[in-house]
């Protein structure tokens, strides 16, 4: 799904630093928010540890669909732990992924922003659409679609803003190519939406309190 699969050196150093600074600022806000909440969120921290492990594993699995893609589970992270803890989860996943050669080290900042947009949008849609779509499966699925689409848009925005070093492609050509990547990525979003919907429905059945839903 939305993840900038480019090597170090694709972005100029100044853009690498800019995306890192923006990402670090958001991480700082998340840490400050967590600290001000104190120990209220201990249960969510445990869930965050589980989703970090699950999402990192899923990140590395290449699905042989449309030539090879991977899922993110970022919308599920947003739904289960929210954007504050989700920011830290995303950072850990991206650092570990870069450590094994999945995305460049310099692009971790940019990739944190891409994945964080998925977490935030999915979280907002899932919480905000509660009265319109009470069904957990479809609400989580729709939140996943919208979240992943926004992540793809952020990814394209970051690449177009930064520009790629040493290539002769025009912005229009890059945009066309990236639009095709978005379309393919969204095809995989169907699997991710189904998976997220099923997981959320299952959790909603056995532990609705984990989703912030009232017990039936």
């Amino acid at each position: 799904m939305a993840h900038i699969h480019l090597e170090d050196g694709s972005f100029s150093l100044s853009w690498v630093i800019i995306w890192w600074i923006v990402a670090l600022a958001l991480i700082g806000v998340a840490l400050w928010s967590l600290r001000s909440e104190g120990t209220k969120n201990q249960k969510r921290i445990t869930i965050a540890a589980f989703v970090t492990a699950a999402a990192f594993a899923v990140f590395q699995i290449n699905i042989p669909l449309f030539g090879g893609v991977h899922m993110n589970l970022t919308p599920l992270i947003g739904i289960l732990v929210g954007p504050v803890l989700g920011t830290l989860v995303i950072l850990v996943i991206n650092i570990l992924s870069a450590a094994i050669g999945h995305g460049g080290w310099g692009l971790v900042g940019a990739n944190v922003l891409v994945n964080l947009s998925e977490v935030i949008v999915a979280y907002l849609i899932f919480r905000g659409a509660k009265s319109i779509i009470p069904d957990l499966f479809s609400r989580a699925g729709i939140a996943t679609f919208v979240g992943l689409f926004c992540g793809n848009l952020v990814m394209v925005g970051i690449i177009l803003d930064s520009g790629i070093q040493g290539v002769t492609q025009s912005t229009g050509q890059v945009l066309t190519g990236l639009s095709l990547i978005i379309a393919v990525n969204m095809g995989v979003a169907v699997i991710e939406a189904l998976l997220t919907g099923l997981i959320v429905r299952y959790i909603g059945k056995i532990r609705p309190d984990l989703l912030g839903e009232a017990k039936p």
Partner: protein
Amino acid sequence: MTAWKEHRGIIIFGIIAIIVLAGALIAFKITGPMGIEDRFHAATGIIPVEEEDAESGIAGFFLEGNALLYFLILAGLIVVCVFAYRQFRI
């Protein structure tokens, strides 16, 4: 009207799924099968650096790009999950 209210979530989900699947298939027709990195290289115009073939894989089998092995492992995992669910009711 009541049916729409009851099922609007799944209807919206289904419509989105159909639209994005159609888009993905059209994009796939245009680009052909490519790995993730290849897709990015083609989109951005980066010429990939050829890497030397490295020995990797599970007992001589390459999982990446091998759809048959992938589905066999997936099927095995599903069987294990069904067994665990029935045995332990988790």
